[in-house]
C-alpha cells in the first residue's frame, strides 16, 4: 500500500493524465504531483494520484524492480509485492 507504481504519461487534460502502465492505460490525477508534468514524462502513481515526477535519468532504474515483479508473477496470489503493484494499477481509473 506504500509502494507506488511508475507509468508513462500519454496525454493530459486539466488535472487528469492518461498514463500507460505496461500497456494498460488509466487516468491518473495530477492534483498533488511535485512538479509540472508533460506527455512523455514518467510519474509515480499511488492510489490514483501522481505523487512524484520521475526524473528522466532515473526512469530505467525505477522500472526495473516492477518489471521483474510483473514478469515473475503473472497473476498469482502468492507474491505480495506483485499484488501491490497490480492494486496500484487498479487504483487508477
Amino acid at each position, binding site marked *: *500500500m*506504500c*509502494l*507506488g507504481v511508475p507509468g508513462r504519461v500519454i496525454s493530459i487534460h486539466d488535472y487528469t493524465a492518461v498514463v500507460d502502465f505496461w500497456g494498460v492505460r488509466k487516468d491518473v*490525477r495530477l*492534483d*498533488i*504531483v*511535485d512538479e509540472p508534468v508533460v506527455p512523455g514524462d514518467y510519474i*509515480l502513481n*499511488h*492510489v*490514483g*494520484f501522481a*505523487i*512524484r515526477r*520521475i*526524473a528522466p535519468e*532515473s526512469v530505467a*532504474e*525505477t522500472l*526495473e*524492480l516492477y518489471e*521483474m515483479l510483473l514478469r515473475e508473477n503473472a497473476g498469482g496470489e*502468492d*507474491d*505480495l*509485492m506483485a*499484488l*501491490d503493484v497490480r*492494486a*496500484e494499477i*487498479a*487504483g*487508477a*481509473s
Partner: protein
Amino acid sequence: MTNELQFRDPALARSLAATLARLVDEIGRPVAVMHVCGSHEQAIARFGLRSLFPKALDVIMGPGCPVCVTDVPEVDEGVVLARQGVRIVTFGDMLRVPGTVQSLADAQASGANIEVIYSPRQAIEIARETDEEVVLFATGFETTAVATAAVILDNPPKNFSVLSAHKYIPPVMEIVAEMPGSRVEGFLAAGHAAAITGSAVFEPFVERHQVPVVVAGFEPMDILAGLVELLELIRNKTPRVANMFPRCVSAEGNIPAQKQLWRVFKPVGGKWRGIAHVPNGNLRLRDEFAHVDARKRFTIDLPSLWDYAPPALAGQCICGDIMAGIRNPRDCRLFNRECVPENPVGACMVSNEGTCKIWHLYGGVPDLEATA
C-alpha cells in the same frame, strides 16, 4: 521463492553483504535497526535478504503497516456505521481487521453494505452514482492521506464523507525510540512516504534521539545500500539523516501534496493498535471540513457493540510486541496455528503489509542456515 536470490548485480549484492558483515564486526556488538514500512519487509522477505545479513545484525519491522495499527475502536466505528445502514468503502486489507466484536467482513456477512476500493477516487465515483450516504473508511500513512485530502478538496458529492484512520509516521518513531529497553540504534525510513514528507522531516528526530535515519528505496540493492549507510553512521557515531533514495525523495519532499495534506488534516494524539498512545500520530479532519467528516456527520453509537466479550484468543496475540520490535512472529504461539490469513487473530496477519502475513507467505524467516 526466498532462496532465489535474484539480483540485478549479484556481485554487488555480495559485496554489500560483505560490507555489512565488516561494519557489524567493527561495531563489535549485536546491532538492531528498524524499518517502518510493509513494502520494505516484503522486499526483505521476498528476496531472502535476511540470509545475507550478518548474524549480529537484526533488521526489525516496526509499526510500518497502517492497517495493522488501526485501533480496535476505529474498526468499531466503521462496523457501527455499516450496521447503521451507511455504505462503507475501504481498502481491501481493512475487511478482516478485528474490531471489538466484528470485523468489517463480519458486518458484511451479516448484510452491511461494504465495498472494496483501490483509490479514494473510486469512493467518489460510487457516491456519484447513488443517493445513499457513502463513507470512505480511510486508512494509510501520509502517502495515502494526501490522496484522501485531494478528493476532499475537489468538491466531492454531498453524500460523501470520510472516516479518517490515517496515520502519520514520524511521531511513532519517537515512541519506538523512547521505549524502555529498545535495542534500536538506527532507522530505515520508507522511500515513498518520504517522497511526500521529504527526508528533512526526520532532522528533529535525529537531533533529539541521536540515532541515524536513512531513507531507502525498495529494490534489494536499495535496501542493502541503505543498511550499509545506516551501519556506517552507527559505527562512526555520527547520527544524521541520509537520503539513499534521491531518485524518488528530496529533502523538502512534495510541497503541493504537503499543502493539501495539512490544509485538510490536523495531527492529533491517539492510540495505535498494540503500540501506544502516539502524540500527533493520527490524522483527523480539520473543523472547516466537518461537513465531510463522518464522525461529525453521524452519531456513531459505539456502546451498541460492546455488550459482547472480545474473542478469547485475542488476549494471546503479540502483534503489539512484534510491531514494537521486541518479539517476532515465531515467538507467538498462535502464529501459523490458530492465526492464519484465512482466519486471523491479530491485525499483523490480516494486512499484506503485516509482519505475520509476510512471514507466513514468504516462508517465515528466510534464514538459509535455519531452514537448511
